[in-house]
């Protein structure tokens, strides 16, 4: 198992190289550079000097090479705009993003899994139909629209909750978490329902019933554990997305998270900040995926066996001479 985890973490190296190269090339293709933004009142000489200093007088690959050299030493670069370490900048914004991601995923887990189970066990009933309509609504509503509507209702009309920022603690978390959580809940309810529907037809549930296991336990113990793999996959993917920063929602609620930082940095062509933040997001997503894989192994012993056999697969036993003939 640990070898499998190390292998997965090592895969970060090619992924990081690919992602950072892509960011560098795409920002180079975008019109304008950071020098155009900060060099408004500079003289031509000063601009030439700045271009030289930041490497804009050389090719994009040269700048990429210099950046990667720094990265090898653990340096994510310095923000052109804020003039501070990208690492510091990222770590300042990360807690707000994690808070929002955690809250929205928690909300989705707590509400969607029981609802999905209920919808599957009462397949075709009122709960099932209502939850599926609600899920469809949740999936179809764009986040920015839902966010604005929530602000109009709960902040402007009722005045219960703040409409922007993260200064009011838990209170300021509710609206953005609910905005992101809605889409998550919809996906998770549908996944839980369909996964449970598949499992509820399984023969081993009939075996459990035949030995006198009460129906509630048949569903919660025997069926749910088998239905968990797709549910965990969705939670992992959604958590990964949320950790990358919910760009739209963070902007609507002026939430001081990583998503907003990246958008601001892109607008200002702050290549170092964009690349640094995206590399860190990649690392976070990879860690979440490894955690998801470990959770898989806890849930399903067959996957545990697969991980274990993956490490021995490359070492086939020596076949004695002549055996093949």
């Amino acid at each position, binding site marked *: 198992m640990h070898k499998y985890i190390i292998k997965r973490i090592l895969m970060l190296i090619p992924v990081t190289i690919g992602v950072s190269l892509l960011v560098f090339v795409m920002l180079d293709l975008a019109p304008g550079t950071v020098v155009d933004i900060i060099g408004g009142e500079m003289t031509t000489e000063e601009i030439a000097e700045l271009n030289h200093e930041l490497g804009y007088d050389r090719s994009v690959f040269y700048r990429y090479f210099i950046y990667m050299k720094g990265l090898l030493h653990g340096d994510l670069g310095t923000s052109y705009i804020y003039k501070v370490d990208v690492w510091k900048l990222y770590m300042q914004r990360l807690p707000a993003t994690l808070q929002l991601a955690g809250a929205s995923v928690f909300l989705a887990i707590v509400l969607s899994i029981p609802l999905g189970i209920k919808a599957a066990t009462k397949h075709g009933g009122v709960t099932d139909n209502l939850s599926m309509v609600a899920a469809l609504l949740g999936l179809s509503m764009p986040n920015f629209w839902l966010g604005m509507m929530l602000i109009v209702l709960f902040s402007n009309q009722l005045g219960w909750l703040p409409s922007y920022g993260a200064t009011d603690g838990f209170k300021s978390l509710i609206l953005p978490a609910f905005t992101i959580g809605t889409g998550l809940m919809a996906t998770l309810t549908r996944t839980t329902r369909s996964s449970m529907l598949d499992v509820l037809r399984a023969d081993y549930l*009939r075996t459990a019933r*035949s030995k006198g296991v009460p129906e509630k336990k048949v569903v919660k113990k025997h069926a749910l554990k088998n239905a968990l793999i797709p549910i965990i996959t969705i939670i992992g993917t959604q958590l990964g997305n949320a950790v990358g920063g919910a760009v739209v929602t963070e902007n609507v609620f002026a939430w001081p998270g990583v998503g907003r930082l990246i958008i601001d940095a892109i607008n200002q062509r702050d290549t170092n900040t964009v690349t640094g933040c995206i590399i860190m997001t990649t690392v976070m997503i990879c860690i979440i995926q490894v955690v998801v894989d470990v959770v898989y192994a806890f849930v399903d012993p*067959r996957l545990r066996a697969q991980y274990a056999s993956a490490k021995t697969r490359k070492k086939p036993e020596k076949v004695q001479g002549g055996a093949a003939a």
Partner: protein
Amino acid sequence: MSEVRENEKTVDDSLVLDIQDLTVHYELEDETVEAVNHISLQLKKKRILGLVGETGAGKTSTALAILNLLPNPPGVIKSGSIRVCGNDMLKLSQKELESIRGSSISMIFQDPMTSLNPVYSVGEQIAESIELHEDCTKAEAWEKAEEMLQLVGIPKERIHEYPHQFSGGMKQRVVIAIALACNPKLLLADEPTTALDVTIQAQVLDMMCDLKTKFDMAMIFITHDLGIVAQICDEVAVMYAGRIIEQGTLREVFNHTKHPYTEGLFNSLPDIENREAELQPIQGMMPDPTKLPEGCAFAPRCPYAKPECINTPQKERSFSETHKVLCSAYDDPTFRIRREEC
């Protein structure tokens, strides 16, 4: 649970299972499958009844109805009564049913590959049944699970292993261990050896017979293998299109066959003494269970059928206290099937 136990004493002690006039239908959106039609069966303590018939004859539906575990919808018990150890399975509450399932009555399912929960160890699955029905601690249940595993021929060291780590035959042994964990009085074995290869089949059968003697239980053995029936059963009931068309002791059904369908089953067996002889399958197919005739469902395939057979409702005819046949041909007192004439 105590109520259930008390009821048991009020009825004939030797009768473990008493089915009267059982009818099971699967009610689909635009048609109704008549899976089991007016069957009656009795089984005494320590006896093994072979329930024989081809696929779709209603054997498994009968077994599931006994446990009151028919998938509903679409399965509905339309009429009849089922008493297991004196308890009317169709009138018990859900809680009472749960206390009987696994303790007084257990079932072994056909496919061992899918009958075990893949995410729990075999030990957990055996011990769960014991914990549910016996007043014991988790450790005691686990200890008994180890004993059960050894009883079915699996080393107790493997108790923490998962179903995917076992072969098909071993899995079936685990399923048997689960079914027998609480010493049931009635075991329903639904083709327990069909998914296994012949050598493992023999081992599992031997083991089941040993365990039957050890636990003093009655058993319904569902199969379409007449060889197995001859080997282990005391009584036989032959099902066709949801009806029991012939039932009696093993000797009566095998040596004094009365029903043309039973005769057809025997004729379609390979003859070990005449290996050159061609097999004689029963011609035709079983009728569509959504459109069963009023009379004999076997008539279209029956070599002795008369035009009136298909429309005249059949009457049960007794040839002895235990030997009963459902065939209108015996209205003619001179009627004999060829097997009997030989």
